[in-house]
């Protein structure tokens, strides 16, 4: 659906994008994350035609994004981090204005507006002035506006910033619903816990380069493998320690309140064998599990210490 190759953009001496390469598959809900100044907004502005790239190529639905701007913009719906509303304009008029920006007029535009306002739950507010709506409603209106021309790719730049948790959850449900309806969605956000739950794919960008990308489940599985093995020992701690010290996959061991945190490099099979050895040695165990990884921990790991702990090859992480 979206392919970016070696995208570069400089502002003076500052390299905002330094050879960014990424791919978003059709039907994906792609989380686009990175620290401040990583180049997320610059990328999104280039994709939406608001900024010209210095170098590189972008294809949207197989079409050169730097070619016919009208055709490309027809495929994209854009929700910026700000609402962008007009004083003295009603919800219906706001929608109809943006419909006319895409050449939709008359009955067709009105029907499309009504349908979208219903979808985002604003059908009761069509005659309200836009600047009188709450933040959550404005955000939903912005989403409806971005969908007015039925784009195949929806790009959202920090859509949840400034929203309360309830509104964020509603907005997330709305995006998931749209994704289930077949829309490809690229969402940039700082609220990683939300992306963790809803995204199918993720890309982490730092200093204008993609440092990690792929399917969310695969990435989280790799993250889990790098997390410590937690063993809650009820009795025979000495025996447990002796077994662990002699095990080839154990790298580090730390103890806190009869709970062992073990740096374990083995896979699921090795974990099963280790558990069997502990049980055979009459070590009583209350708990045995891998600590769950989160997108936040991965994000912090990669963006803070990527040169020490994460080695990358062919775009995939080796942790």
């Amino acid at each position, binding site marked *: 659906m979206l392919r970016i190759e070696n995208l570069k953009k400089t502002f003076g001496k500052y390299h905002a994008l330094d050879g960014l390469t990424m791919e978003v598959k059709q039907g994906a809900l792609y989380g686009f994350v990175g620290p401040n100044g*990583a180049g997320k907004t*610059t990328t999104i502005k280039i994709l939406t035609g608001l900024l*010209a790239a210095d170098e590189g190529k972008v294809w949207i639905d197989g079409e050169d994004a730097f070619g016919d701007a009208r055709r490309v913009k027809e495929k994209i719906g854009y929700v910026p981090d700000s609402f962008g*509303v007009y004083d003295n304009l009603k919800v219906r008029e706001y929608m109809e204005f*943006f419909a006319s*920006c895409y050449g939709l007029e008359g009955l067709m535009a009105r029907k499309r507006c009504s349908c979208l306002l219903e979808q985002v739950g604003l059908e009761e507010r069509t005659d309200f002035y836009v600047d009188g709506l709450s933040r959550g409603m404005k955000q939903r209106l912005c989403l409806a506006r971005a969908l007015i021309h039925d784009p195949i790719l929806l790009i959202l730049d920090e859509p949840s910033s400034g929203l309360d948790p309830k509104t964020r959850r509603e907005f997330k449900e709305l995006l998931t619903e749209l994704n289930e309806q077949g829309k490809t969605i690229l969402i940039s956000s700082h609220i990683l816990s939300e992306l963790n739950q809803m995204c199918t794919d993720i890309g982490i960008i730092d200093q204008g380069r993609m440092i990690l990308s792929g399917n969310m489940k695969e990435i989280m599985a790799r993250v889990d493998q790098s997390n410590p093995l937690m063993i809650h020992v009820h009795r025979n701690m000495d025996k447990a320690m002796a077994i662990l010290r002699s095990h080839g996959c154990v790298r580090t061991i730390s103890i806190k309140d009869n709970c062992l945190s073990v740096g374990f490099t083995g896979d699921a099979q090795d974990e099963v064998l280790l558990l069997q050895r502990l049980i055979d040695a009459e070590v009583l165990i209350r708990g045995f599990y891998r600590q769950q990884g989160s997108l936040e921990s991965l994000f912090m790991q990669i963006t803070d210490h990527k040169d020490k702990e994460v080695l990358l090859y062919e775009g995939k992480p080796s942790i």
Partner: protein
Amino acid sequence: MRGNPVYKREMTISSRSIRLPMIMLIFNSILALAAFLNMYSVTTRVEVTAEISYSSFLQLYVFLTLIEFFMLFFIMPALTAGSISGEREKQTLNLMLSTQMTPAQIVLGKLLSSMFHMALLVVSSFPVIFLVFVYGGIRLRDLAVLLLLYISVALLCASFGLCFSAFCRRSTAATAMSYGFLVFLLLGTYAVNVFVRSIMQMGRADYANQVGLMTSQADSGVFFYLLLLNPALTFYRVVGEQVGNLDLFVQIIEESGNHPSGPLIGAWVPVSIGLQILLAAGFLLAAVRALTPSSGRTKRKKKYLS
């Protein structure tokens, strides 16, 4: 015009705003007050001297059209200087640019909207301006020429207002630059001529003293043609011709020195209007260019950071 979404939206918004009715009220009140005071003074004089001076009614025409001209001249930049930068401040400009609308359509929509406001002001002032027909002396053709001048001046003012609005991030900066340029057109073009001429005059006077000759008349050279861009001078030329009094126009031209400009003086109005329209087109193109992404603003890196 009807197909431009920006124009339609501007019309919807302005129809709900108190701003336009207030501008029209003040604009027409000033014109009506000026007309009333002029007629009052004429009728009072008639009561005292029993003499009707028809030239006073022509003065009424000059006075009213002059006020209208200057009000248009100063109102138009105010209508346009904040239009694009205001969209940027409200963060709606990027929304529009991310749609299938082109920068040219956005600029055109804004221009049409401001020109429509200008047309409303001018048409609403017709009853007061047409008072002059009660006494005669001015033909409809004269008013048509005046209207053409108003349109060209409004177009020029709207265009440079839009241009500065497209380049400036803040409406206040755009407004300040628009009025700065307006003052340059009004006074700067004249001041440059007077200044250059006085410099040239000094040089020639020194030479004449050295060789014992009389001081010869200097002129402002090519800077003289800057006066063609001065809408006020063209206005004086149009109205002066209509009422048979070109003294002020001639005086200003003479202050820039002796120019072999007979044919140009004769064709002053069409040449000046043509140049103003060309300049307006240049400003509009620059505004479109400022909104086109490829033009880029690479030095403003902080604005684009994530």
